[in-house]
């Protein structure tokens, strides 16, 4: 297996050279950032520089950056914290295409804390139906706890446009808005200040940073109920000794990816166009899901295949891709996102996500399409055989 093509950057990205260098350097330093002595103060200083850099990269105040252990933790903190802080307001407004890190805590609140969920309608390409949001706000405004929306969809790449963000800001008014921007930073335009959001979840490892680091951007005006207690290191909203090497490397990676955003996006648009041309050439019956706002995320439905089969065969060829969100314990469930877009279960199970970043090039795509026709042909053969067996 000589070939290795990594098309799963939406799952995680390779750590950048600079981030790795800063991570290693920081890991060699001793000192708990909460300690009062000089060692601790030095680490605290490094962390504050990182905090300021991250704040600057997303147009937030440094005091609005709360470090967490992951994007999932940032989402959970915001969602549960907002819900408890805004009691007795019960209605959570969201969509059916959220990542599990938003979908699951909201459903947990509905099951255990009496939350009621109201869904904003979604178009087939993943676009938000703004008049549906307007209607919900008009009807339930006073009872709405908060609005939670995926800024950039991890499975299909549809992302809020500046106009849509502005419209949501106008419609929501005083109602807090939470964005999951884990797939957005470094890939599409994102500006915390202008977004009007009260809270935003970020993650380091999607932008060339290390695993195990996330951040919650939270407006200063808001106190939320913490989910972790024990030291109150992050403004009493999050407890736990801060992961200094990870945070410093996160700042390096994020700063870098924001600085090169336009360049990377232009490259990815070209790669995407090329990839889609090749799909049309080799697989005329395949369809593309999503609007392509984050051009690196390419969701393709290959009719009459099962994605668990084609993924195995691609992997066997040294090609990494995904059946959707990577979080579901290795078992390929039909994607709730694709089902919400109106795909039937068979089509959802026939869909693969290829997520590229700037480290990919045209040669990767050429190599991919050298292997892909045989893989899809075998996957179709396996599918048809199983179908026949089912009817036997």
């Amino acid at each position, binding site marked *: 297996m000589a070939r290795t093509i990594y098309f799963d950057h939406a799952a995680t990205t390779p750590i950048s050279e600079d981030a790795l260098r800063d991570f290693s350097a920081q890991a060699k330093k001793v000192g708990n950032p909460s300690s009062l002595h000089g060692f601790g103060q030095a680490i605290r200083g490094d962390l504050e520089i990182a905090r300021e850099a991250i704040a600057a990269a997303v147009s937030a105040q440094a005091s609005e950056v709360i470090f967490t252990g992951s994007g999932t933790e940032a989402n959970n903190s915001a969602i549960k914290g907002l819900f408890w802080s805004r009691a007795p307001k019960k209605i959570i407004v969201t969509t059916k295409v959220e990542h599990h890190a938003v979908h699951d805590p909201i459903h947990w609140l509905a099951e255990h804390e009496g939350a009621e969920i109201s869904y904003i309608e979604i178009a087939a390409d993943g676009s938000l139906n703004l008049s549906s949001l307007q209607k919900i706000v008009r009807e339930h405004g006073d009872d709405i706890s908060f609005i939670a929306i995926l800024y950039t969809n991890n499975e299909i790449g549809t992302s809020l446009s500046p106009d849509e963000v502005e419209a949501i800001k106008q419609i929501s008014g005083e109602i807090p808005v939470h964005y999951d921007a884990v797939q957005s930073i470094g890939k599409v335009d994102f500006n915390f200040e202008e977004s009007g959001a009260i809270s935003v979840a970020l993650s380091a490892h999607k932008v060339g940073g290390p695993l195990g680091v996330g951040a919650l951007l939270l407006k200063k005006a808001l106190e939320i109920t913490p989910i972790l207690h024990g030291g109150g290191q992050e403004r009493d909203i999050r407890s736990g000794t801060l992961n200094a090497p990870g945070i410093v490397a996160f700042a390096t990676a994020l700063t870098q990816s924001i600085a090169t955003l336009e360049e990377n996006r232009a490259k990815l648009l070209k790669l995407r166009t090329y990839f889609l041309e090749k799909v049309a050439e080799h697989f005329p019956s395949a369809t593309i899901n999503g609007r392509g706002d984050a051009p690196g995320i390419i969701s393709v439905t290959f009719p009459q295949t099962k994605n668990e*089969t084609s993924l195995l*065969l691609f992997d066997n060829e040294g090609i990494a891709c995904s059946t959707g969100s990577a979080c579901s314990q*290795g*078992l390929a469930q039909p994607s709730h996102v694709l089902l919400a877009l109106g795909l039937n279960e068979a089509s959802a199970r026939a869909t693969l996500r290829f997520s590229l970043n700037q480290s990919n090039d045209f040669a990767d795509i050429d190599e991919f399409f050298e292997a892909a026709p045989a893989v899809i042909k*075998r996957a179709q053969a*396996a599918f048809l*055989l*199983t179908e026949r*067996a089912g009817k036997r």
Partner: protein
Amino acid sequence: MKLIAAMSGGVDSAVAASRAKAAGHDVIGVHLALAKNPQKYRSGARGCCTVEDSHDARRAADLIGIPFYIWDMSDEFHEAVVENFLDEYAQGRTPNPCLRCNEKIKFAAVLDRARAMGFDGVVTGHYAIMKEVEINGEKIRAMYRGIDPGKDQSYVLAVLNQDQLTGAHFPLGDTAKEDIRKEAAAKGLLVANKPDSHDICFVPSGDNAGWLRDRLGSESGPIVDETGNVLGQHQGAYTYTIGQRRGLNLTIPRDDGKPRYVLKIEPKSNTLVVGEREALAITTIEGEKVIWCGPAPVGKSRGYVQVRAHGAAYPCSYQLIDSGSVHREISSDTSPILLIESDQPIVGLAPGQGAVIYDGDRVVGSATVASAR
């Protein structure tokens, strides 16, 4: 060869995958997700089907150094095995779901998919031996009993035809179970001491009767003797099996004081017929859904018949006969019937059980018991 190793998370399938890799094959590990909601089974772990088991399988694949994937076979399993199990019980039969799973899932759905994907076959941790032999001038891949009599699983594999057997690989059959555990430990496999799975994997509680009652209802009905005298009431006829003695709760004793056994289950009238142990003894079996593992025998042949996974093998004669000439209790099937005549009485045989024919240690074929007398 390129092989798919079906890995349940237990020690046998882990060592089987490891042996296949050591033999030089290109092996990929696959765990079959057979339950729609595997989390449900986490606490009720019985050796397979749970999330913990899939983690064990993945860890074993890591240590062996092979890629690992999970295949969702829950729809296929539910339809072919679980629903069939319920359906068979509802008709008063006693099915063996492991036979069914091997026939329809492991060596059909999985093997078919593997072949379509360009693999040559499926490796499992079953205790049976495959050999290339010549039978009546025909070269075949024949299946033999595993050498460990306590673990031999040739009985539950006797539903595989020659095409399925050419894609079946059982690397463990020549070894005793305790040596497999030692080998697993020596190879650093963490499942070396994991307890064996047992009973029925989709009944995590182990309470088959309760599980059946929950799904088929528990309409009580009469328990009668062979002459039709009502002796008591039962709690759902299909939760009993032929030959069962306990759980009848009969208060009227027999005149001779001997215990009573379930002789017959009549699902239509919801009646349980009981009688003395001697009435359970049969020598003639009529089997349907006949499957030959190799070439079909011609005329009347001699061999051994086994009717339970680890039961005795009785010397017998067997031959295929036209289905029109025998009484068919349950099926409207018109394919030929396998008539088996045992030299010795067999006690407590129930319709639905598998009757497996052996020639010495070689598995000749199998049939599903339709009736016995």
